[in-house]
């Protein structure tokens, strides 16, 4: 039977949408699984897979109660707050300093005679640091932080995360400033403003979307980091991922309902960011990768 063009087209449509929906399910099912596991009783976990609350199993808030009011709750709150403070502070610093460097790299001509480096070489020097496996720099950090008494402190972690985020911040912001017209700054400069005033009053407001995108990007990186926290903190400044990873190694075996609720404390803010500012994240990703 010969298919008409219309029929081939609609068959293609059905296949396209089926595949897209299938992948959506694959993306979302694991998250659904964590959510329902967090409202299961231990018995509903051990009896084998149960899928639908109220139908397959009776939901309960026991795990959430334990998580938020139980004996470990103080440590949970502390790690959550640490994660929040470290991620927001280090991202803000990285974006501000990285943004300034990105601005400099697009507005001035640098030439370092001894190395014979110009703007592009400096930009490459910065971004190349992002390609290093983190473990290479973390081992010296252990020693440096000991000597400077920065182990397990907020200051130390903010410093480490700022440097970790900076290459990316410079890279994205540089691209952003390349797209900004210079006329406004130029006229401000002609009107007698100095460079910093022009940056503060003209460039910053114009570049706000770029700063937000970069900030969110750094925030996600920092919030999700485990290696730095594991190596450089042990209690006072330790973060949520470190607490999460540590809770699964208890001698009495993993308590999935509790671990699920705990994981959600870390995952949920990231899902919210994705839902509300997907555009910014996508933009940051694309610029970071292609440009």
């Amino acid at each position, binding site marked *: 039977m010969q298919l008409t063009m219309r029929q081939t087209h609609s068959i293609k449509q059905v296949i396209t949408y089926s595949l897209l929906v299938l992948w959506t399910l694959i993306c979302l099912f694991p998250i659904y699984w964590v959510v329902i596991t967090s409202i299961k009783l231990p018995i509903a976990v051990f009896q084998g897979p149960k899928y639908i609350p109220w139908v397959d199993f009776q939901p309960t808030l026991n795990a959430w109660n334990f998580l938020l009011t139980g004996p470990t709750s103080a440590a949970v709150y502390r790690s959550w707050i640490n994660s929040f403070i470290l991620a927001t502070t280090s991202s803000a610093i990285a974006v501000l300093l990285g943004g300034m460097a990105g601005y400099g790299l697009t507005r001035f001509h640098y030439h370092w005679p001894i190395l014979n480096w110009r703007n*592009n070489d400096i930009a490459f020097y910065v971004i190349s640091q992002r390609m290093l496996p983190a473990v290479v720099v973390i081992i010296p950090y252990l020693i440096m932080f000991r000597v400077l008494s920065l182990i397990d402190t907020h200051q130390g972690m903010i410093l480490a995360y700022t440097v970790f985020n900076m290459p990316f911040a410079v890279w994205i912001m540089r691209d952003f400033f390349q797209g900004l017209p210079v006329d406004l700054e130029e006229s401000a400069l002609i009107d007698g403003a100095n460079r910093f005033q022009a940056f503060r009053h003209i460039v910053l407001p114009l570049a706000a979307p770029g700063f937000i995108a970069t900030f969110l990007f750094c925030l996600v990186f920092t919030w999700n980091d485990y290696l730095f926290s594991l190596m450089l903190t042990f209690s006072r400044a330790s973060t949520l991922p470190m607490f999460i990873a540590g809770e699964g190694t208890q001698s009495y075996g993993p308590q999935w309902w509790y671990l*699920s609720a705990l994981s959600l404390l870390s995952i949920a803010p990231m899902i919210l960011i994705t839902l509300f500012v997907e555009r910014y994240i996508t933009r940051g990703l694309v610029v970071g990768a292609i440009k």
Partner: protein
Amino acid sequence: MANAASTAAGTAAPRPTLHKVTPKRDRAASYAFLMPTVLLILGLSVFPLLFSFALVFLSWDLSRLEGGIRFAGLQNFVTLFNDTRFWNTARVTVIFVLASVTLQYFLGLALALLLNQDIKGRRFFRVAFLIPMMLTPAAVGYVGRMLFNESQGPINDLLQRVGLPNIPWLSNPTMALPSLILLDTWEWVPFMIIVLLAGLQALPPEVFESARVDGAGEWYIFRHITFPMLAPVSITVIVIRALEAFKLFDIVMVMTGGGPGTATETVTMYAYTVGMKNGNLGYASALAYSLLVMVIIFTTLFINTTRRAAQAED
């Protein structure tokens, strides 16, 4: 690695400039803008890198901060060369990188092509597809452990329902690495989708139109137009993902802990164990540097091979 940068930097747009040379009155300002970043990176990234390199030639016992340091020459390299546990971690890491990045690239490309059509609800799909890569890897490790759980997990349950045998995902040494690859793929296909989709959307539409007018089939267009034109973006995403995959640490720590035995232990994990748990900083640095060498070898080989393939195509 220098090649990777030139591919990445080569596409930078011409920048708007005020003057050909930075005028004198801006000299101080220009350095005030740039230097905080340059110095921070110098002090906390370049210096540690060199420090780490010096450590490779030392035997430094962390448990004794004073007196624990001794010059060891090439001893750490000799140990490394004869260390079967290291070679196993290197093998695990390389297999992991090759398999997961390949899988992620082709899945990502397929999904990006699907999304790059005139479809309804594209924004919904984009958001849903982005979510996995935003999630905390330590938490994702638990998700993997639950999903792959052999008796309580939904994956084996699903296999059983369609009449397939149960698979010992995490308890069997040969299956643990594939499980890890699948989980990592779940988390990182989003990156491929998003960047490849942006790459597809940036291709000039006229080329495709004229090919269609000439009667070219879909497959022909993909094979001879889309795929070659997308190559620079493909190479970039593959290199970025591979650089990240070489560092594999968090999901594997939580999902398998490197086990069963050392079946899924990666180089970063081993360096962590040697450095933190055993306090042997010199050897840990040698392990970390071996990872850096692997990364450089891989990137150079990959970029040269693809470049040669692209030239052969022309």
